[in-house]
């Protein structure tokens, strides 16, 4: 694929030189949106400089939720960081667990058994459903469809959280995966329950689409807004649904084939324009593909052990070395880079958070748009501040 190294110039340029430091000059107005703005989905601030209604400059300010995740992880055992990964992107604890478990498995040379791999795929795809459902609900809420779509989305999410609770004991902070497998086996009747939830999901998606996708207001608000070109998306290392909405065919489930994803038949939906509408539609289409994967995985899951017999709970010390494990999280490429010096704690622990990196193009997408559109553009990026700030 052809890459362009030059950063494209912002299209909208009316600023006199004096105001580039953010100071209001003449008819420009500087507004701090956040950190407690309902549209920022957490504690996040956008410093915008406005010319009337148009955004001429935007600076994302984050770090309000910094918890020192990486340093804490370097001072605790490998297993001890697992519950902290739940709290990175708190909507998707299962995929966070998987990404971390994957890198430690690479480091220690563990191989999860067949059943564990299936359970991982099932929980990860359920997590994708949860995340995308929440995202479309919040996005529509940002657009002014107050309450109703979000509540419908949360109603569906509830069935999946019930499944997570039955499996792992917790609805959101699952702490379920272990190095070399999973913590506990599926409880009796879980698969039937999951099948029921997955079966009803296509119906919900149809309902949801009937409800809003053709809505004239939604189309008017989203089409052509917040366009992200594929060149910029590639150059800025955007991953996940954001990248695919810009028309770049890159899905780590297909590229890396981690776990057992190569066994499943699913397609990667791609957008055409890279605008907010495409990013909204991509999520809906991806949910349909997830339902497809889930149907296959729930049909094929074998019996057997759920953890590698070599895996150790106490006194786990991988040999010295380094490893990078990455998965296609619901928000993009989630990776953990670990360096081991043979001690019980990692020497270096680094998270590649998709939310943070996807956020870096926020200004490019917002320039020249109305300030009201900046809100939905931010919504369509899909950030969780727990992961951005860590």
């Amino acid at each position, binding site marked *: 694929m052809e890459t362009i190294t030059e950063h494209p110039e912002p299209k909208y340029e009316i600023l006199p030189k004096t105001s580039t430091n953010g100071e209001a000059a003449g008819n420009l107005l500087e507004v701090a949106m956040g950190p407690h703005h309902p549209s920022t989905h957490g504690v996040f601030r956008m410093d915008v400089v406005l010319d009337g209604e148009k955004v001429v400059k935007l600076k994302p300010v984050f770090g309000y939720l910094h918890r020192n995740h990486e340093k*804490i992880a370097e001072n*605790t*055992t490998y*297993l*001890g*960081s*697992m*519950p*902290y990964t739940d709290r990175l992107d708190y909507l998707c604890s299962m995929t966070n667990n998987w990404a971390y478990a994957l890198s430690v498995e690479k480091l220690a040379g563990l191989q999860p058994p067949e059943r564990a791999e299936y359970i991982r795929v099932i929980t990860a795809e359920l997590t994708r459903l949860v995340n995308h459902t929440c995202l479309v609900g919040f996005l529509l809420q940002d657009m002014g469809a107050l309450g*109703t779509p979000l509540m*419908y989305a949360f*109603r569906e999410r*509830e069935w999946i959280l*019930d499944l997570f*609770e*039955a*499996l*792992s*004991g*917790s609805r959101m*902070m699952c*702490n379920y995966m272990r190095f070399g497998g999973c*913590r*506990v086996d599926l*409880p009796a009747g879980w698969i039937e329950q999951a099948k029921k939830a997955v079966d009803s999901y296509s119906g919900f998606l149809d*309902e949801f689409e*009937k*409800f*809003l*996708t*053709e*809505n*004239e*207001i*939604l*189309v008017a608000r989203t089409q052509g807004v917040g366009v992200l070109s594929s060149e910029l998306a590639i150059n800025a290392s955007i991953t996940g649904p954001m990248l695919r909405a810009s028309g770049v065919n890159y899905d780590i489930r297909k590229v890396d084939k981690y776990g057992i994803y190569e066994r499943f038949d699913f397609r990667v939906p791609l957008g055409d324009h890279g605008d907010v509408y495409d990013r909204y539609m991509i999520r809906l289409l991806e949910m349909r593909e997830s339902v497809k994967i889930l149907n296959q995985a729930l049909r094929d899951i074998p019996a057997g052990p759920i953890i590698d017999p070599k895996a150790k*709970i*106490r006194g786990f010390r991988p040999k010295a070395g380094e490893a990078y494990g990455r998965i296609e999280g619901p928000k993009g490429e989630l990776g953990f880079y670990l360096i081991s010096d043979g001690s019980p704690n990692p020497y270096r622990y680094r998270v590649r958070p998709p939310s943070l990196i996807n956020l870096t193009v926020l200004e490019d997408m917002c320039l020249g748009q109305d300030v009201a559109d900046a809100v939905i553009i931010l919504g369509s990026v899909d950030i969780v501040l727990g992961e951005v700030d860590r």
Partner: protein
Amino acid sequence: MLGEGIIKGMAETARNFLGSYTDPARLVTVEFPEEKVPAKENARSFPFLIFDGDDAAKGLRCVACQICEKECPPKCIYITKSKDKKPDYVGKSQFYPAVFDIDISVCMSCQICVEVCPFEAIKMDTEFELSNTDRFGGLLFDKQKLAKPNEHYHKIHPTEAAEVDGRLGAEKAKLEAKAKADAEAKVKAAAAAAIPKPAPDSSAPAVVK
């Protein structure tokens, strides 16, 4: 036609709204304090210490090995080992925790302590209505408050508890069998010693002083 999509959406909302009056399956929430959803079998809130028998002070399974204290990610467990020993649940002489505190305002319900405990002594409770007006003392659970009988464990996690009990029972039976075999061997050895000219044990390594 302009507005068609909006009308379609409104129809969908109306269907959901009216549906909630006719179909109980469409009602997805419960009125919380009056009505409660029963806890799932695997549900977890905060840890508690198991004791066998009726006396919490005597039957506590914890042997104060302090593994959970070390492994707890936010370090909210505090243990002081006892000076003396007393018999544990299998009858072996063991230390016991003189102090065992968990600060549940720090605990993040991660269950790591349960996983690392080699003695099945600490398990997760499902009780979650623990709000308290005393934020220092009220949320610092000590040994007395943490100790709960094995029956409680059976009540909240029946499958898991049955499995654990089976394992512990097997362990205990094995230990007893071994103790019996040892006793028999001792009797035999004593009998052998009574016979003059005992054969020197050639397999024993020579002790170099």
